[in-house]
């Protein structure tokens, strides 16, 4: 399992179709299939905007409001990032999505020896509030929502976002931040983890709890099936693992005495769109339905809006190829179509050049235009959930629901997500699946156009263009950081860092003190350093 299979007979006749999630697809579907899976309109679909929300979260879908587009942006220095933000907003983008460089993601200052060669390389370098003051200058923070792609130190960046907004005169109850804040998926797939599992999850909880109490418009966690899928998971596993991760965070919040109805409405999901069109659509519809059911039946969530599976369905990075890169423009359009047919509330699309470079402005704009064409030109806003009632789609949605539940049960059998990640069981499973997929690709059993089929002999693969690493930017960043350390009130910084250490050690929510640390221009490395000392670092389990 894990690999799509098309078994072919003579003359290209397709004899069998098996989707990665393990569902066998028939040559055609009819009323009998719906009967067989026990399809019931009221129970399985309901009208759009009604429980279980299979069709849509809102009664009018895109007719009331098109999706929010949120292309991932973030460049070297805060100045450059600010220019790019303003450019994207002037071109109609309605939300920002910030990329941080690796030292920032790992809680290291730009002058840390471990940061050498990485400052500003894959995103914006942030050392202190001063950098945020530059990056968010002239951005209407009360109108634009900001996704912060940060996990291990989501607490620090959320605190800094609040500090910068307040400094610019936006009250904290008017700002909308979405720190990614999903450390378990970093441990499964993306690798930007620092602290051991238990402490890391506690910080996730601190970030959520604080937002619930103090930042009414912020969405303090974005659970990323996305990266889990990129690491080798099937669509069913993507959803199952995301839900098991969400359940872990819910448990942490409940242990703090909060009721799910107080916070689950703030959860959002980041889910992937590449792969088989029908499987993606069924996945999203099944996911909306299952999430609502889990919250209602397991957690007693009552308020309707809290049952919504909200989030970004988009990206598609792993579907894109370096070979024949223009093909990615077409792939992106189909992935966006999958998202639109699934009723994605927020979306973003990887740029066609992303397989070999950091997106150029032209490529990023093309992605945005792809999304706009769907909404403005070809009729995706006309009616809600247009595929509803299709014998195939409804059967597949029911089957996908079963597959997701099976995968969730599998995790439960391993003792839940915390245990499955600590032991490395999930990581080993996904590595094996990724290996099988890659072998299938190399043998040509899985077709990738332009990669292992329809290859033009005279075609040269595009050269990988790495974002030019700007030594001068890095030097400037370091110079300014050093100047900052001399000019700020260092006694106050020391006092606040000691307070932070006590909060961390004694189990108090670290957020209030972090906000004060940020205001006093404590650096990311200093604040994270306190956590490193108190919590230690994670020793990842072997995958071999």
């Amino acid at each position: 399992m894990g690999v799509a299979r098309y078994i072919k007979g003579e003359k290209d006749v397709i004899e069998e179709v098996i989707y990665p999630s393990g569902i066998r697809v028939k040559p055609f579907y009819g009323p009998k299939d719906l009967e067989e899976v026990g399809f019931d309109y009221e129970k399985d679909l309901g009208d759009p905007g009604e429980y279980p929300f299979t069709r849509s979260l809102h009664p009018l879908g895109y007719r009331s409001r098109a999706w929010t587009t949120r292309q991932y942006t973030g460049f070297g220095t805060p100045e450059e990032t600010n220019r790019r933000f303003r450019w994207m907003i002037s071109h109609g983008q309605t939300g920002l999505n910030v990329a941080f460089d690796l030292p920032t993601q790992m809680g290291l200052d730009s002058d840390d020896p471990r940061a050498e060669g990485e400052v500003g390389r894959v995103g914006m370098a942030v050392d202190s509030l001063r950098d945020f003051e530059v990056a968010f200058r002239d951005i209407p923070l009360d109108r634009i929502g900001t996704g912060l792609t940060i996990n291990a130190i989501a607490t620090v960046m959320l605190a800094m976002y609040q500090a910068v907004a307040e400094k610019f005169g936006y009250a904290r109850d008017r700002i909308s931040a979405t720190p990614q804040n999903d450390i378990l998926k970093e441990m499964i797939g993306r690798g930007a983890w620092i602290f051991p599992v238990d402490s890391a999850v506690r910080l996730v909880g601190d970030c959520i709890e604080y937002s619930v109490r103090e930042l009414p418009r912020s969405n303090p966690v974005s659970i990323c099936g996305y990266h889990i899928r990129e690491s080798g998971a099937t669509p069913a596993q993507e959803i199952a693992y995301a839900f098991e991760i969400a359940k872990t965070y819910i448990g942490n919040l409940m242990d703090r005495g909060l009721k799910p109805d107080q916070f689950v409405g703030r959860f959002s999901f980041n889910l992937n769109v590449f792969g088989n069109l029908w499987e993606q659509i069924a996945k999203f519809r099944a996911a909306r339905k299952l999430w609502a059911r889990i919250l209602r039946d397991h957690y007693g969530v009552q308020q309707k809006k809290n049952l919504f599976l909200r989030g970004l369905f988009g990206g598609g990075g792993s579907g894109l190829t370096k070979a024949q890169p223009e093909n990615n423009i077409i792939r992106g359009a189909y992935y966006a179509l999958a998202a639109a047919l699934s009723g994605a509330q927020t979306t973003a699309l990887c740029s066609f050049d992303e397989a070999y470079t950091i997106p150029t402005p032209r490529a990023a704009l093309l992605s945005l235009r792809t999304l706009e064409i769907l909404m403005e030109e070809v009729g995706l806003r006309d009616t809600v959930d247009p595929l509803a009632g299709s014998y195939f789609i409804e059967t597949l949605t029911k089957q996908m629901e079963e597959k997701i539940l099976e995968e969730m049960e599998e995790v439960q059998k391993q003792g839940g997500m915390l245990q499955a990640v600590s032991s490395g069981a999930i990581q080993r499973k996904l590595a094996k699946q990724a290996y099988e997929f890659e072998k299938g690709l190399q043998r040509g059993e899985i077709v990738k156009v332009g990669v292992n089929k329809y290859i033009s002999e005279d075609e040269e693969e595009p050269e990988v263009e790495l974002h030019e690493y700007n030594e001068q930017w890095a030097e400037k960043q370091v110079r300014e950081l050093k100047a900052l350390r001399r000019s700020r009130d260092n006694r106050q910084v020391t006092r606040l860092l000691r307070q932070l250490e006590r909060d961390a050690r004694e189990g108090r929510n670290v957020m209030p003190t972090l906000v004060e640390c940020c205001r006093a221009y404590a650096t990311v490395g200093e604040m994270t350093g306190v956590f490193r000392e108190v919590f230690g670092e994670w020793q990842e389990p072997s995958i071999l």
Partner: protein
Amino acid sequence: MKRIKVLIAKPGLDGHDKGAKVVALALRDAGMEVLYTGLHQSVEQIVRTAVQESVDVIGLSIMSGAHLPICRRLMDRLRQEGVQDEIRVVVGGVIPKRDIPRLKELGVDGVFPGGTPFPEIVRSIQALFDTQT
């Protein structure tokens, strides 16, 4: 032929290690003995592990674009430890073609940009030892 022992290593801060894991599994399937360092390794840590485990090959996986400075430091370190002749170095990941000659100049024995077929990686590593004997 003796069993080749490979240390797959992820230097630096980048955490995208699907490629590293997948290649580790492929080399193991090809009969090599494979260790994987895990993430966030410094060059010093990688070399220390390689020496302690007496590996024949270090396979670096680098996606961040920092392959030239990292390889330069790694080769220096191997020389400092006096093991530059015992341990061969290969690199995979996001590597622009124009950097391949520069990596070779630094003393890297093989470069496998993303998408290199597993059999090719296996053959290239085995060839490093065929010619020696």
